[in-house]
């Protein structure tokens, strides 16, 4: 009976739009504040990300004359819808584990590509050379990090004994083993690239392309991209917590510890962001395909060996 009522609630209120949006702004504040502390700055007040979005909402939307209007306008909405669905599926798997379906991790992997695809579409439709270069970079970046990310999940799936549902996977904290740790670290870097943070922010690259993919966006449409990004900042670290760090548990203590794990992952992301220069796109591709790839092949092998001979720490 509950289904009909629950689905809109999940999508719109919790863990969907309202919750993810609010938490995303808090996470954005965290990124800016911790980044500022690393850089000896004071940083913004708590509500600054919210003010920024509200201000953008009230600004004029300029659409370039040469742009493909339909795609240019719908791309941010598609991206937002993708992240919304992603966070809903994740949240439901975290807090209503009995309601999920087998194989939702595969759905999640697909949904995670959607924001990047929307970004590529929107920037390609904007008919700006800067955005075009940015889109080409984003495309190369997506191609380079998707494979390592999937390989990292394969490690987890092997570790948890062939489990394909998020609820099942999140009951194993696979980061405790060698292969799990390698997979966690590599997927953290992939998440960094998905979020478009330094060292993998070459698609935006303010000082090269003048914010590249987002160059022609303004007003409410830019606000939608910002909101999408803020929501990704909730969904992606939460996904890492669930897949590698043992999820949020079902007790209050487990929930608090789960939030602690989420904050740790976000702070790790911020520290990586603030202690590295931006790499070149060819260096990023080489890094993900060669170094990440080799490390993850080793991790998959270790996990398989560990599974066969029943050695948990491998």
């Amino acid at each position, binding site marked *: 009976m509950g289904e009909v009522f629950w689905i809109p609630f999940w999508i719109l209120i919790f863990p969907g739009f309202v919750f993810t949006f609010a938490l995303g702004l808090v996470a954005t504040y965290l990124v800016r504040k911790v980044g500022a502390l690393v850089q000896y*700055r004071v940083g913004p007040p708590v509500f600054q990300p919210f003010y920024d979005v509200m201000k953008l909402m009230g600004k004029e939307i300029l659409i370039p004359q040469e742009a493909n209007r339909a795609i240019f306008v719908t791309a941010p909405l598609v991206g937002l819808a993708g992240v919304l669905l992603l966070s809903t599926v994740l949240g439901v798997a975290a807090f209503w584990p009995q309601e999920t379906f087998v194989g939702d991790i595969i759905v999640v992997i697909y949904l995670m590509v959607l924001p990047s695809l929307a970004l590529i579409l929107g920037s390609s439709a904007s008919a700006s050379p800067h955005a075009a270069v940015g889109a080409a970079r984003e495309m190369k970046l997506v191609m380079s990090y998707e494979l390592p990310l999937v390989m990292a999940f394969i490690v987890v799936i092997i570790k948890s004994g062939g489990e394909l549902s998020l609820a099942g996977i999140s009951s194993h904290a696979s980061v405790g083993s060698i292969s799990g740790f390698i997979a966690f670290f590599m997927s953290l870097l992939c998440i960094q690239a998905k979020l478009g943070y330094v060292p993998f922010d070459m698609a935006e690259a*303010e000082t090269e*392309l*003048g*914010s590249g993919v987002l160059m022609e966006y303004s007003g409410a449409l830019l606000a939608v991209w910002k909101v999408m990004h803020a929501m990704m900042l909730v969904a992606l670290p939460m996904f890492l917590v669930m897949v590698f760090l043992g999820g949020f548990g079902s007790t209050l203590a487990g929930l608090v510890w789960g939030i602690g794990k989420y904050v740790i992952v976000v702070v790790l992301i911020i520290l990586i962001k603030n202690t*590295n*220069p931006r*790499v070149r796109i060819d260096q990023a591709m080489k890094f993900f395909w060669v170094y990440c790839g080799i490390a993850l092949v080793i991790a998959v092998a270790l996990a398989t060996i560990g599974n066969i001979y029943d050695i948990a720490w491998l």
Partner: protein
Amino acid sequence: MKKILNKPVLAVGPFHPLQEEAEFFQLTLDGEIVTDIDMRISYNHRGIEAISETLQFDQVPFLVSRVCGICSASHPLAYVNAVEEIAGITPPERAQYVRVIINELERIHSHMLWVGLAGHFIGYDTVFMWAWKYREPVLDILEEITGNRNNYGNVKVGGCREDVPNEMIPKIRQKLDELEKKVEMLVKVVLDDPVIHARLKGVGVLTKEAARQYAVAGPTARGSGIAIDVRRDDPYAAYSDLDWNVITQPEGDVFAKAVVRLLEVLESIKIIRQAVDKLPDGPIDMEVKEIPAGEGCGHAEAPRGETFHYVRSDGGNRPVRHKIRAPSFVNVPSFRASCIGQHIADVTITLAAVDPCYSCTERLAVVDGHNNVIHDYESLLKLSREKTARIKKEIL
């Protein structure tokens, strides 16, 4: 009608987050590779030389210290060197040392500024903020001595405007000690960070031959292995009494330029320490009655390279001709040698690696918007003669 370009073009400028000033680089692209670069400056010509010819000799240092906010000690010094050459005077010894101190403080803050900006250009904002934080005490010292963080205008013909008080010397020393530790830390960070190596080594190489051909100056030349430095080659102020090294790096890439600048900061600290040690007592100023007719050249090693001033006097109280050539004017064209064939990501940092300063490089350019041509000297002369002929005809 749509204008269709044969090749994709990326515009860096006239207003671009890469650089604060108005400049325009048109990068022709093949994928991510830059195949050609075209540059245009002169968006912000201010006619400094013409203004200078309307001012008295003593007023000009305040004007030329505003040629560039960062090189605001080197330009007045070069000008004053030129005027003192005309007048044939040597200012008091203490003034010479004060000039050294101010100029080296300027070099430190300019190089720290560049290190921070270079970090920002490759997306390393932490380096940006840290380098600029370390730079603040230097600006505080400058403010305490001259009254301004920038635009000091501290030299005048025959001496200096403000003295370095003896009681301030311990404070200068203490600030330099703190700064030295931090710069050494920065040097270590730059020299050891593998990601910075990957990002800067072998990028935007300006070979020694190319550097000679383009006649580049300052750290740009020294980063390509050419040991030129006006302070050593033609000493002015008190540099001949001090012991220091000209830093060079043979590679010619962006990394080499960064290393040259960071090590030069340490050399500057060394110079200032010696200068405050040897600071002689006595006046900082002498009376200059009049500037005789004649012409003089002065140069100074600005943070970006040699800045050159030519002054001609007819015996009156203002220069009849004042010519300025700032180092960026020779450094900027070297982009053609260092940028073509690089990635966009590398070109932007290479553009920044010579620490270009457009405000002092601006030249007058007359653009005919109807025919889309930029007039050169000959065609301007021709236009002017045509106009004169036309006016003559109207009068007759």
